């Protein structure tokens, strides 16, 4: 079965979508590639795409993210060229999550133990405040 996967790069990654596309063009894999502003779309047989995606991820393990896509690249039912412009519906989710990718990349790259986040100080309860005032005045 043919599948389509997004290969999305973090904005802080040294790997550009064009680098990924060039790697795929120069590879032995028989797939269709479409380069976008945020990464590339790869379409081909499932086993081939899985193997290729593994190779691509090795370029920058912490900075490259993979996502499944339902429609093939350039499908007229989703391609904005056929729908009169505007982003395709699924792009908004990618756009929003892309903003978080640098943080996630750094977290993946750091790998090791995580220091606990100090809990936020809770606001003083009015009853406790009254007690303090009474203590000070007495």
């Amino acid at each position, binding site marked *: 079965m043919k599948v389509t996967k997004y290969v999305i790069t973090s904005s802080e990654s040294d790997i550009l979508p064009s680098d990924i596309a060039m790697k795929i063009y120069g590879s032995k894999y028989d797939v269709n590639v479409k380069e976008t502003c945020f990464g590339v779309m790869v379409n081909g047989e499932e086993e081939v795409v899985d193997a290729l995606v593994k190779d691509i991820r090795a370029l920058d393990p912490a900075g490259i993210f993979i996502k499944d896509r*339902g429609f093939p690249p350039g499908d007229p039912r989703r391609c904005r060229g056929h729908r009169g412009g505007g982003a395709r519906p699924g792009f908004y*989710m990618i756009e929003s999550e892309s903003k978080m990718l640098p943080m996630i990349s750094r977290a993946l790259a750091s790998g090791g133990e995580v220091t606990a986040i100090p809990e936020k100080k809770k606001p003083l309860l009015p009853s406790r405040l009254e007690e303090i005032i009474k203590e000070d005045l007495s």
Partner: protein
Amino acid sequence: MSKVIVYPPTSMILSDLVERMGHKALVVPERVRELVTANDVQSPPLNVTPEEPKKGLRYAAVDVPSGVRGRMALIGPLIEEAEAAIIVEDPGWLTGCAGCSRTNELVRLLIRTKGIPVLDLNYPTDDAQAKVFVQKIRAFLEGLK
């Protein structure tokens, strides 16, 4: 390898982290692919036939809007298949097939009532939270092996 459903069901970050750590992420695009790339498209353009909302009847009553039942026709089978779940609370920018609040409530309810291990998280807003986010997912997924 466990089958892990992620919420939001179209999340790139969650599905990537699950796959990266050796498990199978259950996501909506897979179901969409089955519909739109089928050899016999009975109901162009998206092959959503009247049967889809009927499948959703397994999860929502007939008086529930067909949009909810249609979405559940895609997401419901994923929940049935799931062996674990990662839920990130409403990030506020769910759109498209994940943009229906009533469906999302139902999805979260069905996941929680299924009795599978569930990891609840919030999307990180800084580096420290991102490290905890990744670490919690890693620990959760390692515990499933």
